């Protein structure tokens, strides 16, 4: 049986284990589910985050992003399935094993009574890899007021402190839960800059409900909707895979039957057909379009922005879900 099979627990392999196990995946989940009472917050999520990736987990508010992150960080326990973080079962992620993982969340409760300087000083002995010059550099870069108490800081400043404390020990994995939510553009840029400076040595896993803020720098993306992971893949592959196809028809045409399942959001008028090809393969795909539309005049296949890809997928999934719900309702009657 595979070590990641549902119901099995992966034993820890020591603090340095796991970085190169499981095909280099820093995070790997399989069938990961979480239920709060009757509410299914996360349903059978399976994803892999390769080493060195900047993985953006996107989804609307309430999609289950924070729940997934809390499961990875062992703040919550899964109802079913399992997860590995740096090669360690997520339920073993505690104590010394957190010396290689940085975590920043928008809704963390900080020790408000501490000053910025005292907090960084307090954290220092917890991490053998704490880099004091880097700490000083981050304090300067984020313009942090060392003598001010955390309770006196603005939201943006607190996020910067959290980020500085998570970066100063050069973590192997940085987990960020909505790190930019509600921040003004200047602070957001400063944080991103700080983050990207450290990106080469760290795998970053972050969640966001704003596609535009992660599109520019993410290498991988996963999309959660209502607790289900709709897809998870490399950004480049995703961009290459999706094409907005516009077919101009010369004259009348018969409605084609058996359209490929990878064609989403299919719309047609008498002279124009438009759809999203979610499995575009360049010339091969064009030939396939011509096969379905022999009367096609011109075929345009345009690359799509991330936002459009997400909308296409989300609408398709919702449509299918409604369809199956209606079918189920009909069969009950």
């Amino acid at each position, binding site marked *: 049986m595979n070590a990641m099979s549902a119901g099995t627990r992966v034993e820890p392999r020591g603090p340095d284990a796991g970085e190169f196990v499981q095909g280099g995946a820093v995070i790997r989940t399989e069938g990961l589910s979480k239920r709060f009472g009757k509410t299914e917050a996360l349903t059978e999520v399976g994803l892999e985050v390769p080493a060195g990736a900047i993985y953006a987990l996107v989804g609307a508010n309430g999609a289950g992003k924070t729940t997934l992150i809390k499961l990875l960080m062992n*703040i*919550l326990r899964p109802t079913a399935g399992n997860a590995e973080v740096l090669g360690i079962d997520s339920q073993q992620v*505690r104590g*010394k094993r957190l010396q290689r993982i940085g975590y920043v*969340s928008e809704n963390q*409760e900080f020790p408000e009574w501490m000053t910025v300087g005292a907090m960084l000083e*307090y954290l220092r*002995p917890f991490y053998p890899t704490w880099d004091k010059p880097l700490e000083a550099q981050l304090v300067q870069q984020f313009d942090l007021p060392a003598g001010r108490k955390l309770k006196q800081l603005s939201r943006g400043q607190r996020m910067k402190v959290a980020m500085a404390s998570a970066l100063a020990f050069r973590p192997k994995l940085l987990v960020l839960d909505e790190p930019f939510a509600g921040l003004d553009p200047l602070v957001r840029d400063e944080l991103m800059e700080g983050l990207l400076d450290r990106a080469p040595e760290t795998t970053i896993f972050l969640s966001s409900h704003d596609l535009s803020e992660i599109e520019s720098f993410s290498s991988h993306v996963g999309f959660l909707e209502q607790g289900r992971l709709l897809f998870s893949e490399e950004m480049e592959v995703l961009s290459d895979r999706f094409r907005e196809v516009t077919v101009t028809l010369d004259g009348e045409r018969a409605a084609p039957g058996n359209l490929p399942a990878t064609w989403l959001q299919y719309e047609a008028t008498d002279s124009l057909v438009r759809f999203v090809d979610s499995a575009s393969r360049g010339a091969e795909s064009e030939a396939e379009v011509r096969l379905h539309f022999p009367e096609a005049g011109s075929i345009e296949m345009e690359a799509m922005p991330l936002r459009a890809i997400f909308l296409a997928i989300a609408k398709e999934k919702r449509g299918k879900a409604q369809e199956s719900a209606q079918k189920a309702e009909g069969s009950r009657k």
Partner: protein
Amino acid sequence: MKQALHIFAKDIRHFWPEIAISVAVTGLFAWLFPYTWRHGPGTTEPARLLYQLSSLAIVLMAVSWWLLITRVIQAESLVGDRQWWVTKPYEWQGLLGAKVLFIAAFVLGPFLAAECVLIEVAGFHWYACLPGLALQLVMLFGFLVGPLLALAAVTSGFGKTTLTLLAVLVVFILVAALGAMMDTGSLASYGDNAGGFAAFLLIAGCGGAAIVLQYARRMSWLSRLLLASVWVPLVAAMWLSSTPQLIAMAYPAAKASFHVAMDLSPGRKLAMDAGAGRVTVTAPLVVTGVDGGTAVRVDGVRATLVTQTGKRWTSRWEPIYGQLYFPGGVRAGLPLQVDRKFYESAESQPVRADLVLAVTKLKSGEDRVVPMSTGEMSVPGVGICWVSLEWGTGTFRATGIDCRTPMREPPETYVNVRWAEVSCPADGRDEVPGEGMVGQMMGDPSNDPVQFGLVPIWKSAVWLESSMVDLADQAKIVRHSPLLCAGTPIHFTQYTVTGRLRYNVRLENFRLPPMQGAGDSGMTGLSF
């Protein structure tokens, strides 16, 4: 350990105001507590006020501990999913170690220091009490500090901890009320602290397991369940301990060398005192045949009364206090609690009583003789004693002897002294002509080096009276406000438990004294 010290240092920086308050309150307790033995007739008004405040200081000290423990535990709250520290490399052993170290340093440490000071101030030496001090700290941790720590660990904020604590108190009151409603009687002294030890193991065990589980895995609901489960065996034990079967097991039927009988000789008769639902009947008894060097103590009684018409009523086990019988023949009055309705129906009829006495047999120890002093007297094996006084007939009269002892009450002690009627003889006389005066110090029957409490010094009192005198002197059995003279020898005799038994007494054919009206005391000739 390094991490524990690091967190400990952070907590000191954060909680120094709370630490200062707690230490100051503990200091206040150490300053005020000696007034519990310094006050008395003739003491000044401020001293009396300070004595009254000393009880308040103990309460304040406990409250300051609760505040300090809750705050320090919840600085790294274990409940919830938003805490900053849970994603930092805290080792649970280090975190728990830091919290325990903090409690040891700022709750147990100052308390221990205050206890040592109080022991010295009370006239004893702290180093002689080390085993007791150590055991008391263990008990304090198991019964109070540990449960507070556990409660703070399974709740998410100070408010919630406070509400939970109040809920625990409400449950405690409800359980006690339920126990009172279901009361089938109980005897206080038969358990020999076995119940207390079992309760300690249970509370400390469940509390400790909940704490470790919560720190190691942050499984709040399981930890809460574990803490809540303490109630089940505690309530069961409380209920079981009062069952007649268990009392019968603790006091097995055995042959007794002594003899107890009704004494209706001239001048002695039954007395009654009518209460709302009960009537207390005091049965005059005579106890003979107690072996030399021993004594017999009645811990409880269960009475069955049967009228001539066959009507029957059986009491529950009722605890009895102050009934200690010595060799040579002793007259005593045994109080029986009788249901008022039965009493009214059986009043003035011939009645038979079958009494079952729960008896503890005692063996006397060394007789320690200390000359009476107007100041304090050091009594080996007891502590430091002084004569307690009461203002009457234009002068202070002795009412008894008060003693203070470190860590626990002294063992059960019998005190015997002679008093002067009018005035003390000239100096140099060893003894005064007068009557024998006896008193019983209800001490702690166990041999434990410490009794559980928040105080290091225990005060015990002997009420001296002449109620139990030799049968030959029965004409002179009257109460006195005695005059104790300096130099008069006071005899302190300590007793140890040698066994327990049930003793059956049948009181044949007597009449219950008539009641004189509802709510009336109805005393009808209590003559001893």
